[in-house]
């Protein structure tokens, strides 16, 4: 391959989902582009790939092929190497002033559900499997005396439970055990990926009634 041809190679890596606030979406907003020819690279980055017309929040599922076509149209002999997604999503949010109070109300609501949900889950579990009775039996079997319901077993169980939850979630407030993402962060990412996948697959479907092949 000669040097001149090599210069025309454009590497394109589009992100799966990009949130934008502007109506004109340029290639540099949604993708990382590399080309050894600086001026071609600048022209690629400045390509307008979509103009959003509607004024409301919406997710647009886009195909990478028109983008490759547009880059190819910038000059002759341009080779585009797509390293990223074949379909990508532009998540348009109209620019709005941040509604801090509302944000914190929502956060407080989820905090309340998290706290009560956690408390409820462990209480239903304890009741379901009758932990107090089991501990009473165990106490009688080992110590040989009747349990008064407040023994070393209940205390150490509570400490162990706290430790277990902390180890599982990997952090408390700002303190963190290691650099791994926490389980909820992992679940959040999985959930978002599922959403993106569903959006892309829904948009790509041409058939009307076939649901399962």
């Amino acid at each position, binding site marked *: 391959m000669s040097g001149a041809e090599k210069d025309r190679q454009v590497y394109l890596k589009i992100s799966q989902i990009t949130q934008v606030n502007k109506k004109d979406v340029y290639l540099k907003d949604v993708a990382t582009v590399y080309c050894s020819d600086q001026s071609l690279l600048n022209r690629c980055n400045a390509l307008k790939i979509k103009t959003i017309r509607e004024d409301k929040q919406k997710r647009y599922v886009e195909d990478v092929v028109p983008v490759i076509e547009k880059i190819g149209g910038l000059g002759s002999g341009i080779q585009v190497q797509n390293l990223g997604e074949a379909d990508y999503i532009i998540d348009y949010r109209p620019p709005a002033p941040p509604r801090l109070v509302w944000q914190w109300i929502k956060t407080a609501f*989820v905090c309340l559900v998290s706290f009560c949900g*956690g408390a409820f889950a462990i209480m239903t579990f304890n009741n379901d499997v009758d932990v107090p009775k089991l501990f009473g039996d165990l106490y009688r079997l080992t*110590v040989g005396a009747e349990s008064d*319901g407040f023994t070393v077993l209940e205390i150490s169980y509570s400490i*162990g*439970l706290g430790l277990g939850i902390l180890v599982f979630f990997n952090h408390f407030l700002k303190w963190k055990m290691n650099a791994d993402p926490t389980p*909820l962060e992992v679940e959040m990412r999985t959930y978002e990926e599922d959403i993106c996948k569903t959006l892309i697959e829904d948009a790509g479907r041409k058939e009307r009634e076939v649901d399962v092949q």
Partner: protein
Amino acid sequence: MYSSAKLLFLAFFGLSAGGVIAAGVFAFLAVIGVYPRLIGKTGTKKHVRLYETFIVAGGIVGNLVNLFGIPAPLGGMPAKLLLFFFGGAVGVFVGCLVMSLAETLNALPVITRRIRLAVGLQYIILAVALGKAAGSLYYFWQGIGNG
């Protein structure tokens, strides 16, 4: 009556039991998808750590209250208000939980395919929600669980 070996055994046993139960119950909570959905719907992903802190705190406090029967003598109105908020939040939580479970088992998609449902999925969801609310009220009103 305490021998130190027995005491040590019980302490070790309790500690291990707590750790394993915590892992099981809370891994289930994280995986079932209630929290990601709530966080996604409210668009508050940047507070994920805060939510986890609250789940941890809820688990610990709930267990202490449940096991040791710690009284919280608030009396009359404040107690009712607390219970109102607790009940509401637990209701939202359980509502999400049961639907997450149903969704994991693909109940709705299967029914939709079987009867070739084309329109009105939202009414089916609404019917499920109303049915659950009515069923729950009837359950407590008639005291079905107390028998």
